[in-house]
C-alpha cells in the first residue's frame, strides 16, 4: 500500500491519461495505444495501482454481440488526488517508455 516511492515515468503517463477523462472507463488496449506503453509494462502498472487503490477495475459488457466482456479501468478518488499531486510528465518517445 505504500506510495512513498517516486512514481515512475510510465506510471505518471498512465495517471495523466486516466485523469484526462477521470470518470470514463477505459479498456486496456485503448490505454496501451494512448500511452504508448506495451502490455508488458501497462498490466503490471495497472495491477499495482489497483492493489494500491489508485485505480478501480470492473467488467464491462461488450459493445458488439459475441465478444467477451472487457475489463475497464478508471481512477478512484484517491487516484485522482494522487494524480493532482504527481509531477507533470516530460514528453518521451513511446519506444523509450515501453523499454524503460
Amino acid at each position, binding site marked *: 500500500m505504500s506510495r512513498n516511492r517516486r512514481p515512475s515515468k510510465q506510471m505518471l503517463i498512465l495517471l495523466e491519461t486516466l485523469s484526462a477523462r477521470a470518470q470514463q472507463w477505459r*479498456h*486496456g*488496449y*485503448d490505454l*496501451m495505444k494512448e500511452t504508448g506503453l*506495451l*502490455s*508488458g*509494462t*501497462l*498490466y*503490471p502498472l495497472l*495491477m499495482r495501482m489497483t492493489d494500491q487503490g489508485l485505480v478501480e*477495475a470492473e467488467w464491462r459488457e461488450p459493445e458488439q454481440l459475441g*465478444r*467477451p*466482456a*472487457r*475489463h475497464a479501468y478508471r481512477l478512484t478518488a484517491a487516484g485522482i488526488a494522487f494524480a493532482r499531486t504527481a509531477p507533470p510528465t516530460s514528453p518521451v518517445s513511446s519506444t523509450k517508455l515501453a523499454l524503460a
Partner: protein
Amino acid sequence: MTAALSRAVMSLAGRCLGTDRQEWALAMQAEFEAAAEDGKPLAFAIGCLIAAWREMVKQGEGRLALANYALALGLLIPMAVQQFEQAVGFSMFLGAGIPARSAGQNPYLIWSQNSAAPVLLVLWLLLGIAHLCLAWVLVEGDWPRVVKFGALIGAATITLSLFTGVLMLDPSPLIAQAGELAIELSALLASARWHSQLLANGSPELLAR
C-alpha cells in the same frame, strides 16, 4: 501460424499469473481479441507473458514455481539424461560382457554379471524415467507424487548399489551419482520446506490447489 502462436503465448501467460491473478489473466485475454483485430496479437501476447513473469517474481508462490522449474531443468533432467546414457552404455555391454571391478576371470561371476545385465539396464532406465517424472510432478506442484517418485529413485538406487556390489561391477558410475543424488535430495527438501512455509502463511494460490 502467428495467431496460433499468439494464443499459445497468451495461454501460457494466463497459467503463469496463477489463480489469485486470474481476473487479470481474463482481462488480458479479452484485450487480446482487440489486439488481434488490430493486427498485433503476438506483440501483445509476449507483453502479457512478460507481465505475468514480472508478477511471478513478486509473489512467494511464483518464486517457488520458478525455483522448481530451475531445479527440474537444471538438475533433474540432466540427471535423467545421464542415467539414460548409462543405460545405453549397459545395452552395449549386453553381448560383450560388463566391465567388472576385479579381473573377473571366474566364469560363474562372468555368467552372473551377464545374466544380470538386463536387470541393470532396466534399473538405469527406471532411474532415468523416474527423474523425468519427478521433474514433471515437481513443476506441477504435486507433492504426494514427488514423494512417491523420490522413494522410487531411492529404492532403484539402493537396488542398483546392491547388484553392483554383489556382482563386483565397476561402482564408479554409482559413486558419481551419489553426490548428485544428495544435492537433489537437499534441493527437494528445501523446496518442500519453502512450500510448507507458504502454505502456513496462507498463500491464496497454494490454498486454492
